[in-house]
Every structure is written in C-alpha cells, then in structure tokens.
C-alpha cells in the first residue's frame, strides 16, 4: 500500500497532466469545428491504414485454404475445358460421369530443374487417385509424366529429363513433332521431327497433340522462338520457349484419361 502511495505521489504530477491534456484535447475536438474535421479525417486515415494492414495479415493466414479451394475450382474448370475442347464457345450440358478426363489438384513437394535428368515429387499418391503414366500440368503448361507411385507420394519425370519425349503439334502449321530437352536452359526445349516442307513461323504456338492417352489435345505448351534448317537436313531445328517456368511451380494438376485403358487394350490387339 505504501509503495502504491509513493508511486502515486511521484507520478501524480504526470498523471494529472495526462488526464487534463486528454480533457482539453477532447474539448478541442468536440467544440471546435476546424479541429474536429482534421481529427475525424486523420483518424479515418489511420483506421483505414490499420484495417488494411490487418486484412493483409489475415489474408496471409487464409492463403493456404484459399489456394486449395481455388485449385479445386481450377481443376473442375480444366476438366470441363478438356471436355468441350479448348476453343469451344458453346457449353453443352454435361454430366460428371460422362467426362473423359478427371483432373486432380496436386501439390509439388520437391523438384529439380538444374540436372540433366530432372524429377518432381508430388505430395499426393495412389490414395488420392493418382496412377502411373498420368500427365501432370499447370495452368499454362505441362510438367511431366508420373513414373513411380507410392500410397502418398508420386514421382514425376519432368519434361526437363533426357528421356522425356512429349508429342506436340504446332497450332498454325498443324504439324506434329516431339518435344525434347537438350539439358541447357530449363525455359527452352526443342521441337524435333518437323519436316522441312512445313511452313514453320517464329511465334507459332506449340500445343499438345492429344495423340497419346496422357495429355488431352490442345494444352498450351510454349511458343516457337527460333527456327533453323541445318544444311543438308530435312528436319527443322525448332526452339520452343515454354509458357510455365518449371523452376518455380508449387501446384499442379494431374490429368486422368478414363478411356486410356480401353484405348491401350484396343491398340494392343493390332500386334
């Protein structure tokens, strides 16, 4: 008790000052119109700034949740898109069961892009419906093909792998070729097997051809940045810059073709 009294005696002067200062400022703000306006404006600016900051922080906390919900919505949209064709404007009635492609959102746990043979690891596995030989894409490009699978993880052979060959076509020229990586720049891939009679132009868009059961037709891959015809060769050397940056992806989608099994069985009967 004595301590409290001592404290009050020592600081009472400052306390009285603060209380009276608060009183006079509240009087000023209440009864002087000019100061009142300035006060209201300033507090508005301050509270808006504080609110914005708080919203920003709150946004960060919800980012994960928002991301996964957006990813799910994207997956659904991609699924519809594959069904109707990428450039189709009409929207026929559809049923979930009748769709050929399933799109599964996935998270990328680990990836390399600097080696000669690059791989990715997905945080999902067979428990989430993934299977071997399914294609992995992002919103604006392709990532690779699932090679190995465990219950909760999947290993993907990246398009930046010396063994990776993806069947692609040129949008305007209409020709088919194979997309391979020469092991140098992760943004630049080579499109090979385009014969020299095709009219290939710089800037042409490279799409997936849809000939394999892995990727649907018409997925964006990249654009042609240089076309060369070596002397005495019948085949172009085409450099393609991919739209997505394989070194900076953390989310993707796995595409599951429900007819793949059937198509493979049918094609196997030829032999």
């Amino acid at each position, binding site marked *: 008790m004595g301590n409290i009294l001592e404290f009050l005696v020592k600081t009472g002067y400052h306390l009285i000052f603060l209380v009276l200062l608060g009183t*006079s400022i509240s*009087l000023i703000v209440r009864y*002087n119109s000019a100061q009142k306006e300035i006060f209201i404006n300033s507090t508005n600016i301050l509270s808006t700034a504080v609110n914005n900051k708080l919203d920003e922080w709150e946004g960060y906390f919800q980012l994960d949740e928002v991301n996964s919900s957006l990813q799910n919505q994207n997956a659904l949209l991609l699924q519809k898109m594959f069904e109707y064709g990428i450039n189709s404007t009409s929207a026929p009635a559809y049923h979930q069961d009748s769709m050929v492609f399933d799109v599964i959102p996935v998270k990328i746990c680990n990836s390399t892009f600097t080696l000669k043979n690059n791989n990715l690891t997905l945080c999902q596995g067979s428990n989430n419906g993934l299977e071997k030989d399914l294609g992995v894409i992002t919103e604006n490009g392709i990532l690779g093909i699932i090679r190995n699978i465990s219950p909760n993880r999947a290993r993907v052979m990246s398009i930046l792998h010396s063994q990776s060959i993806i069947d692609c076509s040129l949008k305007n020229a209409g020709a088919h070729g194979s997309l391979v990586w020469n092991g140098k720049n992760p943004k630049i891939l080579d499109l090979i097997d385009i014969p020299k009679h095709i009219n290939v132009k710089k800037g042409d868009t490279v799409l997936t051809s849809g000939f394999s059961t892995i990727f649907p037709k018409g997925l964006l891959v990249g654009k042609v940045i240089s076309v060369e015809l070596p002397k005495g060769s019948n085949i172009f050397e085409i450099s393609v810059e991919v739209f997505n940056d394989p070194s900076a992806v953390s989310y993707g989608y796995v595409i599951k073709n429900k007819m793949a099994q059937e198509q493979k069985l049918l094609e196997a009967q030829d032999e």
Partner: protein
Amino acid sequence: MSSIILRNFLRGLGLVLFQVGILSRLDLSLGSFTFVHLIVYPFFILLLPINTPKAVVLLFAFFTGLFVDFFYNSPGVHAGAMLIAAYFRPFALKVLEPNEGYSTKFSPTMVQMGFNWFISYISITSFIFCFAYFSLDAFSAVYIFRIFMNSVFTIIPSIFVFMIIHFLFRSKV
C-alpha cells in the same frame, strides 16, 4: 506568506482580465501578415512561487486557460496550451537553475533573479506555450510553417508588453 498568495492572485486576475478584456479584442493583423498576436496571461503561471506544488500549478493553468477559452470561443485550446506550458515549467527552472539554487519561497521574478535570467526563462516557457497553443489551434503538422511563424511573432511583442507591465507593477516577491 498570505501576501504572496494575494499578490499572485491579483497578478493572475489582472493579467487574465487584461487579456480577455483588451488584448482579445485587438486586431493586430498587418494586411495579409496575420501572425502577430498578444498573449500575456500565461506569465501569471510562470511567475507562481517556485515551491508551489506542481499539481496545483497544473490545475491553475488548466482552469485559467479554460476561462480564457470562453472569451476566445475556442474550448480547450488555451487550456491545453497552458497545461503544456505549466508541465514544462519545472524543466525550464531546472535547466536555468543558478549555482546557489533558488530561494524557493519566492517567485521567479525579474527583481529576484535578474534581467538576463528572467528573459531566458520567459523566452523558453513562452515559446513552449506559443508553440503548443498554435499547434492545438491548427491541429495538424501540415501547418508547421504557420505554427512557427505565429509562435515567433507572438512571443516577441508579448514579452515586450509583459515587461512593461512587469516594470509598472514590479514587486520584490
């Protein structure tokens, strides 16, 4: 003792009435140069005896300011400025404390402390008062130039007027 209280009371009453009766009605703007004001009543607080309890000085300052505010039609502005000036009075006294200390019974007047000391004391404290007063009046740091000009051009004539009054009514306590 009672004569000190009476003297301070009369000094305060006289200065406040002089302020609200005469100075508050003067229009001192020189054309577009509107920075000149005359404010002398705060000197009453500055001249209270040095041993007056600090809390009492604060209360006096606040209510005197509030009283003046009624005549200036600016509730809180004079009160807040007076409060700030009274709050910093002990600090100013400490900074200017002579080697032999104060004779705490008396007021820090010119007769007691000498002309040089007195001028520095009222310059510092009235600058604090004026700066606080014009800051609360403008209420925004945007007007810092105006606040500064107002303070400077109020302190100089106010001190001058107060010195005249102080000479006319000079006392030993």
